[in-house]
């Protein structure tokens, strides 16, 4: 699999599309057919909303962020260079927007004390069941410093594809790998006593 082309041939929901669909729609939009942009929105709405949700953990805000990302993509459509896959360009644009918006208005802060507290009454002797543990881990990611959290979010969003995550973050692969390593270490430290 070509790392940067992870989204070619399928969408988040599994429907099959090809990169040429995007290119054809972009060309139609650039030629003045605004309605062709709807195909792009339909094709990529789910990935962009899910990516936004990884950043903010709020469904409503995720949709607002994704909407803004599409609008910016529409404005900047002429700047897409065909040598990069459209989805790579779109994800990089969206990631950039999500990061800056989350820095401007941070998502709700989650304390690690809240994260590690067992919520399920079935949990006994401080041992969480699998479901609670998984939820705890996902929420613990949210308490990491932004640069590690973003690297982890993008890495798992792109199905553990470091080059794709690096392209979305506009960072060198080595930097992303280092942040992933450090992020995992921090995560383990936070979860050590609870999971």
């Amino acid at each position: 699999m070509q790392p940067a082309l992870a989204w070619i041939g399928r969408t988040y929901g599994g429907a099959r599309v090809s990169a040429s669909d995007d290119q054809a729609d972009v060309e139609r939009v650039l030629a003045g057919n605004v309605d062709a942009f709807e195909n792009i929105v339909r094709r990529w709405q789910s990935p962009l909303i899910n990516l936004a949700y990884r950043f903010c953990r709020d469904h409503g805000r995720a949709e607002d962020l994704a909407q803004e990302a599409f609008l910016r993509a529409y404005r900047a459509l002429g700047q897409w260079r065909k040598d990069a896959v459209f989805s790579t360009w779109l994800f990089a644009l969206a990631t950039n927007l999500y990061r800056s918006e989350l820095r401007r208005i941070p998502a709700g802060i989650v304390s690690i004390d809240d994260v590690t507290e067992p919520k399920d009454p079935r949990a006994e002797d401080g041992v969480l069941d699998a479901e609670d543990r998984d939820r705890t881990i996902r929420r613990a990611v949210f308490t990491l410093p932004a640069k590690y959290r973003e690297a982890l979010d993008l890495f798992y969003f792109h199905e553990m594809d470091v080059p794709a995550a690096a392209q979305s973050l506009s960072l060198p692969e080595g930097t992303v790998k280092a942040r992933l390593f450090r992020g995992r270490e921090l995560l383990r430290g936070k979860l050590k006593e609870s999971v």
Partner: protein
Amino acid sequence: MKDDELDRILSEKQNLVPSSAFVRNVMDAVRREASLPAPIPFPWKRALPGLVLCVLALAAMCVASFRRSGPQPLHEAPGPSFWTAIWTGLSSDLIGLLRAANVGGLGWIILALVLTFASITLSLRLTGRRS
């Protein structure tokens, strides 16, 4: 906790379903955007000579002010720095201008009116409108 286990948990997708109005909202915003008139690009070509003139005038004033501050005698204590000299020169120029404005008020008023007229005319020319 092992990496594999962490990978498995964090790889799980939430699969949020977009709301039914999402596409419509995006397309409404896109159509609004498309219906707006194209932004007027800044006329760099027309403005460039003016900008260059301004920069040259500023540079000439700085040089003139620095020269006016004069060379420092060698036996004296170290003089003001380059920027201090420029600042001193500029502020003395400004004070001179203000004094002159006080003495011969009418000339300066006329000069101000002419400059205002020139700047308005230039602005209108730059935006392509002629009065």
